[in-house]
């Protein structure tokens, strides 16, 4: 891993531990988030993702380890830090009887240098809903207001916890566009998600957490090491059975297979060359062996 100067680092976590009584939810976790990147935090339920993020957000105290967020220790929730961090929580808690504009104006007044309210409404795509009370918004619109409330303080760093859960495909695409435009504005984003395609689509780098530890960290393209990214050639043979071979040299393998088939005058139905998606690698890394408990 290249060493980077601290000014390029948004978040640094070194050997983080968090125990609840006898159970260790986070067991020696380390990773780093660089400024301006979208960092995806992945892992199965109960892996320690939420605990980790809540420690970074200042909601929880750690048992041991070093945590630095924008150069500050989040424990004790320094106001300097809260002014520069935006948080989107999993459940959207809104004042049902406030309008979108009123809610944003109120929260803007809590920050020393807030974003413009109308600009923020446009950024999340809530134009035309300014004067609608929160209770009249659809589920997707509520999530967008949620995001807007996290962005109103013009934060340097935004935590997004499952930002598109329950979205229809169009709403997801729209949310992704918003996240991309945020990134292009230079905002650092920590994204927790269950959707591997979302991480693949948005994240510059991801860390996969399992049992309170980071089991892999890297770009979605090369996480898991070279062998995890071997090409897979698959086809259906003359008996109708599905065949799959992993290889470093797909060209050579393909040439051999197709050569044999041509010579025998057979057609290779369903012939496909693929690379494992982030989802395949994720499942490989986090799958529990039966009886592994």
């Amino acid at each position, binding site marked *: 891993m290249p060493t980077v100067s601290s000014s390029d680092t948004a978040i640094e976590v070194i050997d983080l531990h968090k125990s609840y009584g006898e159970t260790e939810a986070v067991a020696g976790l380390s990773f780093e988030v660089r400024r301006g990147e979208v960092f995806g935090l992945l892992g199965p339920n109960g892996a320690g993702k939420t605990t980790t993020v809540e420690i970074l*957000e*200042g*909601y929880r105290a750690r048992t041991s380890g070093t945590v630095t967020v924008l150069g500050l220790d989040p424990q004790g*929730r320094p*106001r300097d830090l*809260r*002014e520069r*961090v935006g*948080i989107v*929580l999993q*459940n*959207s*808690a809104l*004042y049902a*009887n*406030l309008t979108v504009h*009123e809610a944003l104006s*109120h*929260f803007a*007044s*809590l*920050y*020393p*240098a*807030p*974003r*413009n309210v109308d*600009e923020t409404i446009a950024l999340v795509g809530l134009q035309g809903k300014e004067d609608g009370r929160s209770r009249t918004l659809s589920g997707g619109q509520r999530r967008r207001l949620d995001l807007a*409330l996290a962005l109103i*303080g*013009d934060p340097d760093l935004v935590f997004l916890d499952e930002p598109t859960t329950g979205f229809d495909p169009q709403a997801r695409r729209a949310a992704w566009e918003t996240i991309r435009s945020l990134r292009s*504005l230079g905002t650092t984003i920590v994204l927790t998600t269950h959707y591997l395609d979302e991480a693949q689509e948005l994240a510059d780098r991801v860390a996969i957490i399992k049992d309170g530890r980071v089991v892999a960290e890297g770009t979605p393209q090369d996480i898991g090491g070279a062998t995890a990214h071997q090409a897979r050639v698959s086809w259906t043979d003359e008996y109708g059975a599905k065949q799959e071979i992993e290889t470093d040299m797909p060209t050579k393998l393909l040439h051999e297979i197709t050569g044999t088939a041509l010579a025998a005058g057979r057609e290779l139905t369903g012939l496909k060359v693929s690379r494992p998606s982030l989802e395949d690698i994720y499942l490989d890394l986090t799958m529990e062996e039966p009886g592994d408990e």
Partner: protein
Amino acid sequence: MSNFAQQQAPHRRSAVTLAWRQYRLERKLFWRNPSAAFFNLMLPLLLLLLFGAVFAGNKKYVDVIVPGIAGMGVMASTFSALAFNLTFLREQGVLKRVRGTPMPPASYLSGLLANAVTNAVIQITVVILVARFGFGVGWPKNWIELGIFLAVGVATFGALGVAFSHAIPNFDAAPAYVNAIFLPVIFISGVFYDTQTAPAFLKEIAQILPLTHLIDGLSAAMVSGKAISTQLGSLAVLLAWGAVGGVLAVRGFSWDERGN
């Protein structure tokens, strides 16, 4: 994308300004929930009108019910409302959201408490006006004494309400929990009758409860005009409850849903 706000020098608002803003927001929200506002303000008024109409002309009884309803109004708008609202705000995640902003916790809670106090003051005012013009009860005899008991009353019941919200497991259970305390307390404490006429064992329980002493104090200030020097015992009991409530309110406070 740049904007003007960003280019201005950072301007951090004071804790007092933020408490004021929160208070203004809470008032706006209070009036935007008409059924809650109606219930909060009209229930004591309705009870007063009802009992007043039934016992109109019985000056002795009206003199009991006026400070009684006033005391009940203080308890309802502080203890019940805060226990109820905090459970809701905690369960909804509003407290957690606020905690993630630069809002100082003390400013936020001050805004919430000031909102409850405003409702208590509105209720007392309504009770005084209805008593004066509806039932011919005179103006309160001692305004300073009234102010002191009102201040101590809202502080005590406010603290107890915050403390009690920690004991409520979830919002669905909140009405049951709150009423399980509120209803027996208003009956035993003599909102609707003179505790001196109650059976001995109820009288003894009443002597421990803070509402009895708030009503005694309000009665002295509003009806009998007894000097505050005769009410120091009641003041002491109220303050003791307030101190216990305050400690429990602060120690048990949780911004997050239970179980987290």
